[in-house]
């Protein structure tokens, strides 16, 4: 895997206290992936754009992490999912260094008592092994899967990202427009629980377990809770739409996409300024008039794209005195109770899977029995660490070297995400021990004997399942086995309730309280998990439409 450090970004010029800058078409606040996507889109369309980052780390905090001397891994997201196809083509990300090691990752599912099943990343390909077709429920699964993929394809436009300025269809509009056969099915997909949809089709078995695990992975709703099935629709909406980056691995990992975005931003001559703190977004006559910086200077502009959290928008940049009460209510949600854990592991030797060597380059998922997963959600919600966790693991080195003749050069690194766990921003040592045990126990079901080959492992949890996994501090060293495990608590937000909740919240957040000239594309404007950048690209498009309509952008 690539360990090249990204090229440094100039801190740019600063706006001094008392100075008022003009001649700027748009200001993008927040230099995460969505902020970069928005700034690049605006600048490439000809808008004079300033990008303000809160820290000097343009592209988001800590996207790579050195877990052992010389071993640098992607931190947070380890795959890209639903990477915005329009953004790739509009910004020419391939020319700026994005190269897929795997465009559509096949997934191998592991179970407690059933043989593994590998599903192709291309849903039209079906099962990869004839043995699988002979399994109980295989025919029913294929029929159900084809129907579900068809439904996901119809609902995909609404789940890709929020609507800006009324562009695009909502879930209810898509359902309303569907034909008589699809309408009730789509309604069920959008509102029912996983159990309610799967129960009539499967009375158990591996296929039901894998669908249940996929639907609820990194979601706050268990399989028995309403709206949880929409998680499965979102999971496969990229594949159903033929999206190449539906679940993909770029060379260098997801951080390589951010690096490419950063290069586009630099090439597009975006004026990057970081670290810069924003004190206020200036509103005059209900319209954006500029940005006031903490240093006292002002940048006058009629377009602001806000790519930081909605909480910071409400509490700092905009202030309650300019925000509609309903907007505040729609975007502010009570903290959830479910979170995920991430394990970054350096092994003592390169992985080898013998006859199943090709499976190493797949996305590997352990799917617990559906009933056990239901109990796990209940346990996690009650604050206990569950015994059974769904786990998604990849060997990044194996994916990058897929197709090579030997395994000798594969980097001995495993990255895994386990779910569901209780959201506990200040966990006790006892909880952390329980998390460690649960993560390793469940990982063993994917990679038997893994524990014997761990050189260094870092497990972090209490992080938001809807976004990155949080900052790596404060670190807590496990004294029992100093060699192998470093456990840290990452106090970020918990998982969103479900995809439906995310969809509603994203669409509400994107309205930015109807302040003319303000476009929101922070984490709350994302639907689903993973790196997609759809919100940033769509916010920039809406900002350009607004600017052109008002004659402020040529």
């Amino acid at each position, binding site marked *: 895997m690539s360990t090249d450090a990204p090229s440094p970004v100039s801190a740019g010029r600063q706006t001094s206290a008392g100075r008022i800058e003009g001649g700027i078409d748009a200001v993008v606040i927040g230099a995460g992936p969505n902020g970069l996507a928005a700034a690049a889109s605006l600048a490439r369309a000809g808008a004079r754009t300033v990008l303000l980052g809160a820290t000097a780390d343009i592209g988001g905090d800590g996207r790579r992490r050195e877990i052992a001397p010389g071993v640098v891994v992607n931190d947070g997201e380890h795959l890209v999912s639903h990477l915005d196809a329009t953004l790739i083509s509009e910004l020419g990300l391939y020319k700026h260094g994005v190269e897929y090691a795997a465009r559509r990752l096949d997934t191998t599912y592991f179970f407690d008592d059933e043989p593994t099943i590998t599903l192709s990343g291309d849903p039209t390909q079906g099962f990869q092994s004839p043995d699988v077709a002979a399994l109980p429920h295989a025919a029913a699964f294929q029929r159900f899967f084809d129907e579900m993929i068809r439904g996901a394809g119809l609902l995909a436009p609404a789940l890709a990202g929020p609507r800006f300025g009324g562009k695009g269809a909502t879930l209810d509009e898509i359902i309303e427009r569907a034909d008589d056969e699809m309408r009730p099915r789509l309604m069920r997909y959008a509102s029912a629980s996983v159990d309610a949809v799967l129960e009539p089709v499967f009375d158990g078995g591996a296929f039901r377990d894998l669908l249940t695990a996929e639907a609820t992975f990194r979601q706050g709703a268990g399989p028995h809770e309403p709206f949880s099935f929409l998680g499965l629709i979102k999971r496969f909406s990229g594949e159903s739409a033929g999206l190449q980056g539906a679940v993909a691995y770029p060379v260098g990992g997801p951080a390589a996409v951010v690096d490419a975005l950063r290069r586009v931003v630099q090439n597009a001559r975006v004026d990057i300024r970081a670290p810069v703190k924003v004190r206020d977004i200036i509103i005059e006559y209900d319209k954006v008039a500029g940005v006031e910086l903490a240093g006292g200077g002002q940048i006058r502009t009629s377009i602001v794209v806000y790519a930081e959290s909605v909480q910071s928008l409400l509490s700092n940049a905009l202030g309650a005195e300019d925000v509609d*009460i309903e*907007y505040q*209510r729609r975007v502010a949600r009570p903290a959830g109770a479910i979170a995920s854990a991430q394990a970054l592991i350096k092994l003592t030797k390169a992985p080898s899977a013998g006859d199943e060597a090709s499976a190493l380059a797949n996305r590997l998922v352990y799917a617990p029995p559906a009933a056990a997963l239901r109990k796990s959600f209940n346990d996690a919600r009650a604050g206990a660490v569950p015994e059974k966790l769904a786990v998604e693991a990849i060997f990044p080195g194996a994916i990058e070297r897929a197709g090579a003749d030997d395994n000798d050069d594969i980097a001995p690194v495993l990255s895994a995400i386990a779910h569901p766990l209780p959201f506990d921003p200040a966990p006790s040592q006892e909880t952390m021990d329980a998390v460690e045990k649960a993560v390793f126990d469940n990982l063993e079901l994917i990679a038997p004997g893994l524990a014997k080959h761990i050189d260094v492992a870092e497990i972090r949890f209490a992080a938001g399942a809807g976004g990155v996994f949080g900052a790596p501090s404060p670190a807590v060293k496990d004294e029992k086995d100093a060699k192998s495990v470093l456990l840290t608590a990452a106090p970020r937000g918990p998982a969103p309730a479900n995809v439906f909740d995310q969809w509603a919240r994203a669409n509400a957040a994107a309205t930015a309280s109807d302040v003319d000239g303000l476009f929101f594309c922070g984490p709350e404007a994302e639907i689903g998990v993973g790196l997609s950048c759809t919100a940033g690209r769509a916010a920039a498009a809406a900002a350009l439409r607004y600017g052109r309509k008002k004659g402020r952008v040529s």
Partner: protein
Amino acid sequence: MIFAADDPLRDTPKPTALFAAAASYCEANAWTSVNGWSVVRLFTSVEEEMRAVRSGAVIADLGAIVRYAVRGEDAAEMLARLTTAPAMRLKAGESARGLILTDQGAVIDLAEVSRLSDELFLLTTPHPHGRRMRLAARGFNVAYDDISAQVAALGIFGPAARETAAKTGVDLAGEGATASGHVRGVETAARSTQFGAVPGVELVFPREDALTVWERLMRVEGVCPIGLDTLEVLRIESGAPRTGADFISAEHKITPHVRTPAALGLPHLAPLERGWFNGRRGLRGAAKPTRRLVALTLDTEEAAPGGAVLADARPAGRITTCAYSPAAKRVIAFADVAAAALKYPLEVAAPPPAEERVRAALLETPESALARDFLAMQKKSTE
């Protein structure tokens, strides 16, 4: 201040602070429930009570109306966000009326804001809005309390209202003024109000002193109590709509129509030039109302809510509230009517058994006069 619509389905309403006093004078023994409080509908008869209103001063128990004390350095900002009243511009001792709107500009409720001191405000609303207050207060340095159950409130209405208040120890400078004083040693906040053409004073004082203040006022010559039915006549005459009866609060969202201030005939209570308030952006982009709430006089002595309003002999709306006005000697009413129908002569279908049609005409009220002047001023400034 306008009462919320009665809620007869709510069982066991609580007694207001003035319940015992009001009950001892309530010859008609006619009661209703508002916001869960027992309220007198009639003490004697509407005719008798209206005569008293026109001739001197009357008192009414306003304990069913909701009151919030809002304190803190951001109290004015928070109220300027929550309501359309110009809370930021109020000086201590001043009051202003406004509306509570959704972000779409739909009316949730009426509101009155009084500034009692630099950092203390009194917000009065027909309905409770605890949840909305909590939402609106996020991000502001304020504390608020629903003081409705801790205070007693009493209205003095009639041409001699201010003199009556002054005789009991509360002196008010003029319309919109707020003052504090003592009635028989009881600390009392007073606010000048206007119920249509009828001037009034609203007194708010500690609940435990309710009977003391009531008795003090009743000793003033000519003062008698009035009930909700008489206040209803005064309300319709004044042109103030009643939440839950003349329009459904936008918070309930059971009607597809967005009732903007203009649709309720209250555009002057939400002027866009007033500075930012919740719903201003929605109002700016709001379409012209397709339905209007209008005050009517009907050529009849009997009508009922729900009665059909006809324009050019075709159904155009319905009566929302109505009352017989002894002064006009006919029924006055609020009606929800299609805006396009207002250019035609209006009629109202009388209730059975008569079922005849009677002429209806738009009623000029103090509120509609304010709205007309406001719109004329707006048009002039646009030109």
